[in-house]
């Protein structure tokens, strides 16, 4: 009897350990990658390179927060990429003065930021309205808005880019503390805030409940609609902010600036341990996922490896993450 109990306890502890390892595996891989890259690649072990990795994570990083909220609530937002892209070209178009492909309005950059954020809110509202009102899957709704907004971005300037914006637009990139740009700091602050909201507020708890068992949420009187609206509006807001920051860093924009971000965001989020089935995930893991992708990208850059191989490696990583996700279930 005693032996049975002991072995049972032991196997339970082992399972717990296994689960714990799998839940934090992204951090392990991240540390492993950085150690290996730093010791084998010339020029990788360098504080400026690390700062670069961090600052190159900013855009994917903010979009990954938006996507995590949507996925944890059991939804999916494909439109994050095109909202960011539209916001980028729209703000550049408004702020551009004499350039031929811009509006000629010469608008203050911070007013363009407000307008972009409003657009983000509107898109988030439309997405969630369609999902809730017509009970269409989030995948189909946001796929449509993704394509529509992408089209609108190209139509705005007829496909042309806008460059050479006033210096005031670039302040968020040019203001630096210890060589770390304000954009990077904004990303970190947003991570802290959204981590807190998800983990410690009633709204965050309701996101997990809705993603876990939506019927339970209805049965216990949670206002499911209001939570879904908020999640998508936040997603739109963060995406629009990302686009504006991209314009600020590049000192200009092209209509296809955020192309390919969606895939990268989903990769980072899945690597970070957010379940595609909803209800599971944490922003610390997502942050590690973002950093992991960024550090790999940096390694490939330094080694001057062909970008086509880069795609192969990134794709394999996502596959790996999905396999980990299902292996977790074996440890029940």
């Amino acid at each position, binding site marked *: 009897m005693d032996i049975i109990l002991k072995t049972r306890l032991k196997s339970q502890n082992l399972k717990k350990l296994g689960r714990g390892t799998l839940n934090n595996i992204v951090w392990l891989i991240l540390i492993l990658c950085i150690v290996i890259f730093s010791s084998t690649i010339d020029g990788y072990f360098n504080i400026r390179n690390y700062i670069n990795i961090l600052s190159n994570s900013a855009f994917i990083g903010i979009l990954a927060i938006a996507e995590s909220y949507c996925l944890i609530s059991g939804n999916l937002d494909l439109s994050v990429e095109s909202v960011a892209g539209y916001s980028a070209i729209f703000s550049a178009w408004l702020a551009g003065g004499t350039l031929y492909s811009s509006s000629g309005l010469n608008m203050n950059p911070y007013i363009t930021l407000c307008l972009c954020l409003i657009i983000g809110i509107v898109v988030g509202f439309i997405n969630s309205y369609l999902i809730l009102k017509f009970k269409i899957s989030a995948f189909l709704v946001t796929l449509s808005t993704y394509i529509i907004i992408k089209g609108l971005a190209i139509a705005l300037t007829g496909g042309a880019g806008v460059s050479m914006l006033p210096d005031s637009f670039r302040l968020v990139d040019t203001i630096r503390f210890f060589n770390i740009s304000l954009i990077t700091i904004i990303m970190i602050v947003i991570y802290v805030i959204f981590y807190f909201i998800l983990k410690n*507020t009633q709204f965050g708890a309701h996101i997990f409940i809705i993603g876990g068992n939506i019927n339970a*949420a209805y049965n216990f009187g949670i206002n499911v609609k209001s939570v879904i609206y908020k999640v998508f509006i936040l997603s739109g807001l963060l995406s629009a902010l990302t686009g504006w920051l991209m314009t600020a860093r590049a000192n200009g924009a092209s209509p296809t600036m955020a192309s390919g971000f969606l895939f990268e965001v989903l990769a980072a989020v899945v690597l970070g341990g957010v379940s595609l089935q909803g209800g599971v995930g944490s922003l610390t893991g997502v942050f590690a996922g973002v950093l992991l992708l960024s550090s790999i990208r940096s390694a490939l850059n330094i080694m001057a490896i062909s970008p086509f191989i880069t795609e192969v490696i990134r794709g394999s990583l996502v596959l790996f993450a999905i396999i980990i996700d299902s292996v977790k279930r074996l440890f029940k």
Partner: protein
Amino acid sequence: MKDLLLKVEGISKSFGSVRALNNVSFEIFQNEVVGLVGDNGAGKSTLIKILSGNFPPDKGKIYLSGLKINFKNPIDARKMGIETVYQDLSLCSNLDSISNLFIGREIVKSFMRLKILQKRKMEKKTAEVMKKIDINIPSLKERVEFLSGGQRQSIALGRFVAWGQNLALLDEPVAALGVRETRKVLELILKIKKEKKLSMIVISHNLQHVFEVVDRIIVLRHGSIVGIRNKSSTGPDEIVSLITGAIKIKK
């Protein structure tokens, strides 16, 4: 004589041309466990859903402690102290016991319009509830998907222990459980009755279980009540014949 808790008077409900409930009347007294039995499609679930506020009856009245009630949604019912334990338990397997106990009732403190969870208070209350019903869950912060069926059921019942003031509606509480866990949950039902002085309506297909925990049995057939029996004055045979219609009732 015990005090009257719930009085249901002439309730009818139709879905299109299907008459799910036909002029159903009964009473539930305080600190009483009543079994609700009947074949599939007899109207048990419809009745439970009306009492838990999922939809209103077409006709009829419901009184709780003498007050006429009119539930618009499950939240109204819960506010009146009627707690439903659903067949699927309404648990989130992705969350821990604490979050599951508090779904929709999180203890919060407002700070700059943000509702901050009071996690420590919630954990303390969960531990209290689990102690009250004598259920040992190794770690309250473990996701409930890793718990046994009986432990999951006790969390669902724990909600009733924590917040129910009047009546619990238990829809097939032991349907998905093993033998030992079934025993544990049946004991739990008796314990709640004895210590919390609450009333319960138990739906179950298993008459043996019903006879173990209830005081009275209400039998539904084709949407009508065909018999209300005290446990002491009846046996499984009579109940089975009522359910199947072998005993014809006089109109």
